[in-house]
């Protein structure tokens, strides 16, 4: 069991380290998020699995599994929030990025140029 713990611990630390190297070396914000959110969550999840395998008793292992579940639940949500905020404020993309499928989608942050539409119908037009 301690061999398994050591392996999970080392694998998690290596994945977290790779995530950080990608954070430092990759090209633009969106590409850096790819390294930070996926490899980082994988590394932390592996380390929590190592904690669960190390203690190997019900309360601690369940708590470690709950932590893994929570991590896998919140990492995509946080990544989505950051990515939408970055992309919709037109953060600079890498010069080799040539697919920009959402270029016409993010316009809700633009300043409003027109008043909210007024309905033609009067308020009290019931027969």
């Amino acid at each position, binding site marked *: 069991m301690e061999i398994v713990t050591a392996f999970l*611990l080392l694998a998690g630390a290596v994945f977290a*380290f790779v995530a*950080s190297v990608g*954070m430092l070396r990759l*090209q633009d914000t969106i590409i850096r998020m790819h390294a930070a959110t996926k490899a980082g969550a994988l590394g932390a999840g592996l380390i929590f699995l*190592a904690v669960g395998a190390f203690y190997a008793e019900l309360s601690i292992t369940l708590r470690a599994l709950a932590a893994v579940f929570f*991590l896998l639940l919140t990492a995509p949500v946080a990544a989505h929030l950051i990515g939408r905020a970055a992309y919709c*404020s037109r953060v600079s993309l890498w010069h080799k990025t040539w697919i920009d499928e959402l270029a016409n989608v993010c316009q809700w942050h633009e300043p409003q140029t027109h008043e909210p539409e007024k309905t033609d119908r009067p308020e009290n037009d019931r027969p």
Partner: protein
Amino acid sequence: MGMESVLLARTAEVALVLLSLAILFAFIRLLIGPDAADRIVALDLISVLIVSCLGVFAIYTEERAFLDVAIAYALIAFLGTAALARFRERMPEGGADETETKTEKDGP
């Protein structure tokens, strides 16, 4: 406590060194930016790495309370990241430190 515990202690030390280097690299990205979104991503990664460090501490010191600390910290870090992302979304276009170039030329 046999030889395998020594193996586990050495592994935990190696993991802590790797995580410390990882936090250092993420902190460099936090410093150089260039956009506020990069800094938010770097802060999110740093908090995930700190949670990982707490997990390693739970094994290294055999103190199981560190697991609860890690869970609570992960919760608070997620809320902080979400709040910072909403804050970035409301900032004016290009962020606080707006650069003129639309593409980043510096590859690895």
